[in-house]
């Protein structure tokens, strides 16, 4: 689980990582269609981002101190790029919001606060990522998560399923996932609890 990220990246059946690895800079491996959409949107945007960043990286305007035309161009074209990014991202956002026909509901409730005694820790362990009672859910099943909290704000997040949703006391938030493969998927509260 804690093997070197680059080694893992190059081995063929590389879809194993469901917990963060040391020095990881990319996403965790995809396990649900929602997260697949998020990753492919990110990667498509990265194409244009690299194009723009490398293109304007100091070669073109190194002589220019002032120019109205070029100012206009580099103000308007990023605006158009932002609009072009907005459409697919709204489409994805509203698609992810839909919970049409779930087969089971999982209630998630946030609590403060758990501690792991230091004597129980070993180097290379997942520390606070791991839990003593894991939630078991079926694969290839549409699962609804009802997320709430008992005390302060928390945030239920499982990166490889593309879930991240606030846990608010007195409010039930709904999200869903369809897990496409077996695995142990790790996640953590992604809110500064109570802030």
């Amino acid at each position: 689980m804690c093997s070197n990220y680059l080694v893992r990246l190059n081995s063929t059946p590389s879809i194993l990582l469901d917990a963060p690895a040391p020095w990881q800079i990319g996403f965790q491996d995809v396990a649900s269609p929602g997260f697949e959409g998020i990753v492919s949107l990110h990667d498509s945007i990265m194409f244009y981002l690299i194009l723009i960043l490398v293109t304007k990286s100091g070669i073109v305007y190194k002589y220019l101190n002032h120019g109205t035309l070029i100012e206009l161009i580099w103000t308007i074209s990023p605006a158009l790029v932002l609009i072009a990014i907005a459409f697919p991202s709204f489409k994805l956002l509203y698609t992810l919001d839909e919970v049409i026909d779930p087969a089971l509901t999982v209630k998630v409730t946030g609590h403060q606060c758990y501690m792991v005694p230091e004597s129980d820790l070993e180097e290379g362990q997942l520390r606070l990522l791991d839990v003593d009672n894991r939630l078991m859910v079926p694969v290839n099943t549409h699962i609804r998560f009802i997320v709430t909290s008992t005390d302060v704000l928390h945030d239920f997040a499982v990166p490889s399923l593309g879930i991240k949703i606030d846990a608010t006391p007195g409010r039930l938030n709904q999200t869903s996932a369809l897990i496409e493969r077996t695995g142990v998927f790790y996640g953590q509260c992604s809110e500064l609890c109570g802030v």
Partner: protein
Amino acid sequence: MAEAAAEEKPVKRILQTVGFDARFPNTNQTRHCFQSYIDYHKCVNAKGEDFAPCKQFFRAYKSLCPKREAGKFPASLEP
């Protein structure tokens, strides 16, 4: 464990939960829980405990509402 599972005849289970409700299309499902809870008790008061259609509301609030700490709901109504 895998062999034991392979020998046993696979059991077919049907998983079911509340579906999409057009009154609550949003991420916020608080009212969905609330409304199902109210509807169930209205239904029971009007038609009696055994009236089968009330079960639908019962199942809805049972699978949507969070478990409360003791005392917030009457024990008999605990979701």
